[in-house]
């Protein structure tokens, strides 16, 4: 089994070697607290806030039914509710954007 050779730099030295798929994953960065996303696929059961609401850090925004649990999704920051992209009953995928929060800097 001869696989393709690539280049890999370690401590300034460039090596010619095989770099298997997924062996080096780029850092995706921290999640943006102004975007509320589904951490797991599931169904939206209830939305607890409306667009324009002032919310505190930790306010429950919506309930997501997944893994046989009603999971509370909370805000990580204080701010205003921006757009809400989902309605109760919607099936959502992992990492799907659910709502935006306008965070006061």
């Amino acid at each position, binding site marked *: 089994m001869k696989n393709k050779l690539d280049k890999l730099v*370690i*401590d300034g*030295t460039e090596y*010619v070697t*095989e770099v298997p798929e997924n062996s080096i994953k780029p*850092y995706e960065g921290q999640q943006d607290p102004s975007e509320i996303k589904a951490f*797991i696929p599931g169904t939206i059961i209830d939305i607890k806030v409306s667009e324009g609401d002032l919310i505190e850090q930790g306010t429950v925004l919506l309930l997501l039914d997944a893994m046989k649990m009603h999971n509370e999704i909370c805000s990580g920051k204080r701010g205003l509710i921006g757009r809400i992209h989902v309605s109760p009953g919607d099936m959502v995928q992992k990492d799907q954007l659910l709502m935006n929060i306008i965070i006061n800097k």
Partner: protein
Amino acid sequence: MSIKKSVNDFLTRLSGKLDGGGEKAIEKQKKKGKNTARERVEDLLLDEGTFLETDLFVEHSVKDFGMDRKELAGDGVITGYGKVRNRPVAVFAQDFTVAGGSLGRAHSKKIVKVMDIAAEAGIPLIGINDSGGARIQEGVESLCGYGEIFYRNTKLSGVVPQISVILGPCAGGAVYSPALTDFVFVVDTISNMFITGPQVIKTVLGEDITQEELGGAMTQASITGNAHFYGKSEADAFNTLKKLLSFLPANSKEAPPVSKPILPANPLGDDVIPDNRRQAYCVKEIIRGIVDASDFLEVQEHYARNMVVGFARLAGRPVGIIANQPRVLAGVLDVNASDKAARFIRFCDCFNIPLLTMVDTPGYLPGADQEHAGVIRHGAKILYAYSEASVPKMTIIMRKAYGGAYIAMCSRHLGATFVASWPCGEIAVMGPEGAANIIFRKEIAAADDPEACRQEKISEYEEKFANPYVAAKKGYIDTIIRSSETRDTLIKVLSTVRQSRTGHPHGNIPL
């Protein structure tokens, strides 16, 4: 009853048990390309005529859900002992043709009994898994059965070798018995292991994935690292298993079996690795040039391929080999390679198998994903395993042995018995390029031609430190040898040092 009548009665009862779930179920099993549990034990695993079966007449005593009307031959598992290449082993094989090989109380008691036999006799335990999982009708009794098996897997760990062969489904809690054993075999298109199957994943998460992608043989061998050996067929897997056993002692108190020495087919010359340290080569070819008959049994061939581990012999004596693989990821250490090496080292130390470490690594793989995946705590396992090991530990530095990776790859500082370097060895805190960039940063920046200055400084550093002599002067390596002398040197060491471990006994925790 007359003797004759009782014998006939016995033979009738016996024949009713021997064909497991009966003709139709066997036909179904065959259609899936699978052998029956009995064929696996008697034809594929054990030497002919050596199987002594225990508990064939065991029956369940469940009354609920109509179970009182169900007779399950052997309660879905075949147990006993026999010989592999004339050496005794204990064995159990789940029989999918009987109630889907589901595990109930009687089934688990049979397995527990054979595990206790393995412990008492000090012989390897081989488990063949082919089961739909817990027998739901038996409720918590079934869970009790799994728990008692896990308990014994753990207590037997490091005492006798334990080997699992996955030859069918092995799902849910059932996966944890194999995961606790030393080696797991899987077979193409036949084996499946997962905690939650594709259907549950579809229902709960809405994700589509096939059984094969999720937990098939190659997935287990290459992605998860749960499996150690991948077979193309059941027969192929059992042949490899027999070969594996040939390297292992029956238990932790015995020395591994010694065979007749055979010279390697292509002994190493003095020109075996590329001149350029940046150029890749396959370390397995080097290993084959050193060991008896060029015969190397690789463990976890498809997983964390930047680290190569496996068994071979030197002048007839089994050794466990751990080698950086420059061909893949330049032979760096990373999370998976650390786990792979550490567990293999600890297995060898459990069973008195000397270690041979072949070093050519530029260091640890840089990156946020490695740091966040815990390369610190995983990397620490190699240091722990080598330091803990009290079997003879021999190290050959082939080329690069830089920084923390030099320490980790069984350096003198971790208690190596013997360390040698080839003349092209580079034992240094880092590679010349990186070192020159740091040490001479200001000079390079201030130079009229920084690149020329950089190259000059790299050469200067290379001349001074990228060699084995600095370490040899300090006695950190015992000797410098030509690559062609490697085999003879290692054999000399092995024939001189103590033959078994001196440290305290330990188990082989899954890492």
